């Protein structure tokens, strides 16, 4: 807990204590305290109500829903049956495989590419503003625009990508329409759309590294790769690990990109993700219980990453 402060507000004795010695003063303090608290809670009430209705209550409800069944307008307790429904659904394992594949690919592309890009951009003395602007540009597009644009670019017949492959004398691809390449295509599009934020955060972190460290490494005869390994990465370790956790948390919840690019399921269900499955249970099959049960599984899995994230970011804050 925080140490007692000298602020005038905190100096007011808590109500009820010290009442014997100076009844008037403490009564005054009590009234002052009450009034201060009333106005403070007045400022809070709007946000607290919104949180109650749209965050806290749904959080509790998610747990309740997972163990309930609603049929013909009648809600009954279902025990673990929602969970077994979810676990016995063949789509369950496929959705997890797809989601992990997306997360894995997104880590290779979406985590590594922005870092390398930031490393390169940080070396430039010219046009850095322009390059930063370019990288962040797609982040500002409405997702429907970037996604449908990529659908157009990916088209096996008239798309630009196959044309480029043809010019390079490479074999043409079916992109989104082939179960082997569909997820990779989704990840490429998602990386293009979203890498701007991560790149800028890495750039800011790189600019915080003291130059003397590189000088010292040079005196020891370190080349570029060794400098990256022994100076850059250790110096940005906190940001790197935070971004890694954030990426994992975000990519395991991917929905919009596969939903829009491949209508959710993709060829042979190759892009069905866990969240798409939740969506299907809830909004196509009206089975809120199973949707909530699957949501809880996702929640339990991601809670570990969230906890690690919070611990790490606390540690980095030195408060």
């Amino acid at each position, binding site marked *: 807990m925080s140490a007692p402060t000298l602020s005038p507000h905190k100096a007011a004795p808590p109500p009820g204590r010290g009442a014997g010695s100076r009844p008037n003063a403490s009564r005054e303090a009590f009234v002052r305290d009450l009034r201060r608290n009333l106005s403070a809670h007045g*400022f809070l009430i709007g946000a607290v109500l919104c949180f109650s209705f749209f965050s806290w209550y749904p*959080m509790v409800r998610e747990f309740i829903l997972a163990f309930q069944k609603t049929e013909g307008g009648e809600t009954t307790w279902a025990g673990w049956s929602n969970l077994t429904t979810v676990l016995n659904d063949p789509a369950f394992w496929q959705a997890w495989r797809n989601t992990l594949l997306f997360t894995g690919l997104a880590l290779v592309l979406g985590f590594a590419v922005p870092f390398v890009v930031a490393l390169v951009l940080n070396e430039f003395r010219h046009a850095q503003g322009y390059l930063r602007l370019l*990288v962040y540009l797609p982040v500002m597009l409405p997702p*429907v625009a970037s996604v449908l*644009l990529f659908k157009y670019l990916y088209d096996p017949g008239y798309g630009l990508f196959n*044309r480029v492959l043809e010019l390079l004398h490479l074999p043409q691809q079916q992109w989104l329409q082939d179960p082997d390449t569909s997820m990779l295509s989704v990840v490429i599009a998602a990386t293009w759309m979203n890498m701007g934020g991560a790149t800028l955060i890495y750039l800011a972190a*790189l600019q915080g590294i003291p130059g003397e460290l590189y000088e010292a490494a040079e005196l020891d005869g370190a080349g570029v790769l060794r400098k990256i390994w022994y100076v850059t990465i250790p110096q940005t370790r906190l940001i790197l690990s935070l971004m890694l956790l954030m990426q994992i948390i975000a990519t395991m919840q991917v929905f919009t990109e596969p939903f829009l690019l491949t209508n959710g399921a993709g060829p042979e269900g190759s892009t069905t993700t866990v969240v798409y499955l939740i969506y299907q249970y809830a909004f196509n099959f009206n089975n809120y219980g199973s949707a909530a049960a699957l949501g809880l599984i996702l929640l339990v899995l991601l809670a570990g990453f969230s906890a690690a994230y919070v611990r790490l970011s606390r540690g980095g804050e030195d408060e």
Partner: protein
Amino acid sequence: MTTRTLISPAQLARPRGKFLYWVVFVLVVGLFTLVFLGPLYWMVSGGLKTTQEVVQSPPTFLPKTVHPENYSRAWDVMDLSRLLFNTLYYAFGALAFQLILDVAAAYSLSKLRPVFGKAILAMMLVTLMIPATVLVVPQYLTVLDVPIVERNLLNSPWAIWLPSVTNAFNIFLLKRFFDSIPRELLDAASIDGASPLRTLRSVVLPISRPILGVVSIFAIVGVWKDFLWPMLTLPDPSKQTLNVGIYSLSNGVPENVLIAALTIASVPTLLIFLVFQRNIMSGLTAGGLKG
């Protein structure tokens, strides 16, 4: 003076270093322009092609004949004025709610320090740890029938505005900023007899302009980019946002008209970005480190 980076200035100053620097630089600038502006060019020019040309193989890099009327057709066919208006209406409404309620909450938690303030803040921050998609189903059910008041918010802007307030990250960001405002400044105002509201308005808010700018931009962009939530809560086509409306109409219109519509839909946020890029980028790195 520039900061020292990976490659030493001495190395760069040598002829070989200079040459390599410029080769890599030109390559990277060219590649980036191609990768990030190329698709945008493809979108703008695709919207100018005829229906046949846009689906012809191999594709043309320059439209053979220019058809700007695709854009006006897209505007009419997809009812873009309505979709744009809706999106703006939701975005600025969400902005207003977030600015009023989140700023008030952060101010209260930071400076007025009510009883249970710490617990309330902690409970708000806990929501950051729950994956957002897990809450979509119970949130949707709440919107269908809001407890106590027993109202159905489906197809109403409140379904966008009120949940947008529950942005714990905003409150956290604002609170941290308010925490850095010296106590003495507020005490001086309170000695002068200013009420908390008055102090907020005439002392705290003017100093907080930078952070308010960041929060505002992210509030607007957040609504502009959201897809799943508006798709679920605004099923009525006349109430939809750009993202949802264009998506649901995308199969029924010719490709070139669709691409023209995408271009139009991209213009507003790109404009916001080009005007406020400095604030957006600094806000991103200020907030990004923490969360």
